[in-house]
C-alpha cells in the first residue's frame, strides 16, 4: 500500500551511506567480515537490502499467520533450550553502560542515526533492566574525544539514569572513542563493590577504531582479575579486540545487523546472568554472601512533612530508614546517612520469578483423551481440527499443556505466562 517511490528513496539513501562508510575505511576491509554474516554475498552495498520483514514470507493464501507462528515457535524453542534446573543467578547487579559518542555514531546506516537509535534503545533498555533487576544499579560512561566521560554515577533509581541521557544535545557525538579510557573509568567506579554482586559493563560501540593511551590488554587482564564481565554490541563490524574483551571476561559479543537485531542483542542482556563459576580467580568463588537490608515503612501522604536526606526538600510521604530514621523519598536506595541498603519487600519479590521460573509447557500433538475445549487461562475456544503444515515445536491445535496441572493453554497465554506472568494459572488453583 505504500507507494514505491518512498521505499526506493530509502534504499538509495542507505546505499550511499554505506558506500561512504566503506570508502572511509577501505583499508580495514577485513573488519567488515563480522558485519557481513553471509560472506559470499560480497560487499554490504552490493548485497540486496534485507530487513526483518523481508524474511517473513507470505503463504499461498497471502496470509502471514504461518510466518508469525514460526516466529512464536522460535521463541518457544529458545525457552525450551534454557536450562530447566534452577541455576544460580546474580540478583544484585551493577552495570556500567559505555556509550560510544564518537563521530562514527552519526552514521546513518541505522535510522535515524546510530546515535539516536542507541539513545532510544538505551532508554528502553534501562527501563526494562530496572524492572527486572530492581536491586541493581546502573552507571553510564560516554566515549568521545579520546576520553571517557562520566554521564551518570552509579544509581539504583531509573529516573536518575534516564534523566542523565534525556538531553541529547549534551551527548552530541564527536571525535574518536577510547575503549581503554572508558573501561578504566568504569572499572574504577566498580572496584569497591562487594563480591556477591555482579560487575558488568555493556558497551555500545559504533566505531571501528579506538585511541588508547596505553596497552588495552593490560586493562583487559585487570578486568578479568576484577571479575568484570564485559558485553559489547558493535554497530559497525567485528574487531578482534572487542571480541577478545567479551570472550576473556565471559560476556557476550554481537554485531547488530539491523535495528531489530540491535534491540534483540541489547535486551538479551536484561535477565540476570547465571553466576560465573570461574575457578581461575585467586580467591576461589566467594559469590554468595549475606547482606544486611532495611525494610522501611511507607509514610502516608498525611504524615507531618520533614526534610528528606536525598533531595533536602520538605516531603510528607516517603520512607523511614529503619536504622537511623532518616527520611528517604524512594526505595530501593542506599540510606544516605547510614549506608544501609533500603528495599521494600515487593522489590525482593520482583526478582523471585528469575529464581522460580515456570516450567515450559509441552506441545499437544494429539487430542486423545482431551476434555477441555477452551484455554484454561483466558477461556478462548481452542481448535479441534489440526492446522496443516506446522513447524516443529508448534502445536497443530494451538494447545500447550502444563506438565504439572495438565491444563491446556492457547499460544497467546503460553507466551504471556512465560514472558510476563511467571506463574501458571492452572497450578495456582
Amino acid at each position, binding site marked *: 500500500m505504500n507507494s514505491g517511490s518512498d521505499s526506493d528513496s530509502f534504499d538509495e539513501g542507505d546505499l550511499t551511506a554505506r558506500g561512504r562508510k566503506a570508502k572511509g575505511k577501505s583499508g580495514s576491509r577485513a573488519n567488515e567480515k563480522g558485519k557481513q554474516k553471509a560472506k559470499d554475498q560480497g560487499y554490504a552495498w552490493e548485497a540486496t537490502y534485507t530487513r526483518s520483514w523481508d524474511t517473513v514470507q507470505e503463504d499461498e493464501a497471502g496470509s502471514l*499467520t504461518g510466518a508469525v507462528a514460526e516466529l512464536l515457535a522460535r521463541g518457544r524453542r529458545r525457552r525450551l533450550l534454557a536450562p530447566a534446573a534452577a541455576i544460580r543467578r546474580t540478583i544484585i547487579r551493577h552495570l556500567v553502560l559505555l556509550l560510544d559518542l564518537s563521530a562514527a555514531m552519526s552514521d546513518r546506516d541505522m535510522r535515524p542515526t546510530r546515535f539516536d537509535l542507541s539513545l532510544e534503545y538505551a532508554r528502553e533498555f534501562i527501563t526494562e533492566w530496572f524492572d527486572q533487576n530492581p536491586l541493581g544499579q546502573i552507571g553510564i560512561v560516554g566515549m568521545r574525544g579520546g576520553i571517557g566521560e562520566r554521564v551518570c554515577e552509579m544509581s539504583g533509581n531509573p529516573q536518575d539514569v534516564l534523566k542523565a541521557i534525556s538531553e541529547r544535545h549534551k551527548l552530541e557525538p564527536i571525535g574518536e572513542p577510547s575503549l581503554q579510557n572508558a573501561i578504566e573509568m568504569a572499572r574504577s567506579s566498580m572496584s569497591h563493590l562487594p563480591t556477591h554482586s555482579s560487575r558488568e559493563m555493556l558497551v555500545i560501540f559504533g566505531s571501528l577504531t579506538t585511541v588508547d593511551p596505553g596497552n588495552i590488554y593490560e586493562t583487559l587482564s585487570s578486568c578479568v582479575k576484577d571479575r568484570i564481565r564485559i558485553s559489547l554490541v558493535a554497530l559497525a563490524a567485528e574487531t578482534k579486540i572487542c571480541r577478545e574483551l567479551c570472550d576473556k571476561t565471559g560476556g557476550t559479543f554481537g554485531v547488530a545487523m539491523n535495528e531489530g537485531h540491535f534491540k534483540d542483542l541489547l535486551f538479551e542482556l536484561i535477565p540476570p546472568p547465571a553466576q560465573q563459576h570461574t575457578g581461575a580467580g585467586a580467591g576461589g568463588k566467594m559469590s*554468595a554472601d549475606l547482606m544486611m537490608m532495611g*525494610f522501611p515503612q511507607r509514610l502516608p501522604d498525611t504524615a507531618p512533612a520533614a526534610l528528606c536526606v536525598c533531595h533536602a526538600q520538605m516531603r510528607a510521604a516517603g520512607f523511614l530508614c*529503619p536504622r537511623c530514621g532518616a527520611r528517604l523519598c524512594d526505595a530501593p536506595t542506599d540510606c544516605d546517612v547510614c549506608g544501609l541498603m533500603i528495599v521494600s519487600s515487593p522489590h525482593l519479590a520482583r526478582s523471585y520469578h528469575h529464581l522460580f521460573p515456570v516450567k515450559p509447557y509441552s506441545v499437544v500433538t494429539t487430542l486423545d483423551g482431551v476434555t477441555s475445549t477452551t484455554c484454561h487461562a483466558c477461556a478462548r475456544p481452542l481448535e479441534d481440527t489440526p492446522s496443516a503444515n506446522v513447524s516443529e515445536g508448534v502445536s497443530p491445535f494451538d494447545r500447550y499443556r502444563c506438565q504439572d496441572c495438565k491444563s491446556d493453554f492457547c499460544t497467546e497465554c503460553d507466551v504471556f505466562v512465560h514472558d510476563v506472568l511467571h506463574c501458571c494459572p492452572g497450578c495456582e488453583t
Partner: protein
Amino acid sequence: MDRSCHLSLIIDLSPSQWHLSAQPTNPHPLSFQTFLSLVLTFLNSHIAAKHENTLAVFGALPGKSTMLYSSLDADSSNTNDPPADANSYRPFKFVNTIVTKNIQKELDLLEGLTEEPPVTLVGALTMALCYINRLAHPPPGSVATETTTEADARILILSVSPDLSASYIPVMNSIFSAQKLRVTIDVCKVYGEETVFLQQAAHLTGGSYIYLERRDAFLQYLTMSFLPPPSIRHMMAVPRQDKVDFRAACFCHKNIVDIGFVCSVCLSIFCSPVPVCSTCRTKFPMKTLQRLNASRPSIPPANGVSNGSPRPPSARPSQGMSASLR
C-alpha cells in the same frame, strides 16, 4: 468521548467464610444471597454506564478457579438464552442469569466435599490477567474487537478469605504483570481480617483497597468507590489506604523484621546472621558473619519477637500487627 472500560470481577466463593459472614452474631451479617444480588446490581451498573463496556466474572472456589461470565464469549452461546422479557433490559438479564446459574453449578459441585481446601484467589487473578491480555491482543482476523483493545481494564477483587502464604510469590508476580498491562486492581475486603497481599496489590497498581466496615451499605461502597473508571478517578476522592506495610517477615522465625539479612543467591530473609542459607544451602563466608554480627543493631528484631505469634511461611505482617508496632 470517554473510553469504554473492561471490568474483571473476582468473587471469593469460600463457603465456610460466607457461612461465617452470615452469622447473626456479626455486627452486620451479610449472607451470600444478599451479597450476590448486590453484586449483580453493581455489574448491571457497570454495563449500564456505556454500551461498549465489557465484563468478565471469575469465581475463586476452594481449590479451583473458574470463569463465570465473559461478555466476549457470551454473545455466541445463544443456545441457553433466558426468555426475552419486556420488563428488563436484555444484557442485564443475561448477565444475571448466567452468573447465578454458574455460581449455583459450582457450589453444587462442592457439596460432596468433606474437607474444604483453602480458596486460592491468585488462580482467579492470573486467569483475569490472561483474559485481559487476550482482550489486548485480539487474534488476527477478528474485526469486532477494535473497540476493546483501547479499553481501560481493571480488576475488582471481592475477598472474604485470609491470605494464603503459599501464594505470596504468584500474587506478587500477578501484581507486576498487572503493572505491565496497566491494569488497576481494586480490592474490597467484604469479610474477614485485612489481607496484606491484596493491600499491596491495590497500592502497587494504583487501585483502592477498602475494608468494608458498614456491610449494610455494601452497594453504596461498591458504587462510589469501584464504579468510576480509572480515567475519572483523579477527580474523585476515592479512598485509598495510606499506610502500606512494606516490611518483610523472615523465613526462619516468621518474625517481622525492620532490618534483615538477605541471601544474595535466593533472596531468603533471615532475622539474624546465619552461616548457611536454609533455602538454597549456600554457605556464607565467616568474615561476613563476624562483620554483620558486630554491626548489628543493639536491639535485635525485638519487634517481631515481642509480638511473635506464629506466622505462615513468608507471610507479610498483618495490618493489625503493624499498627501495634507503631
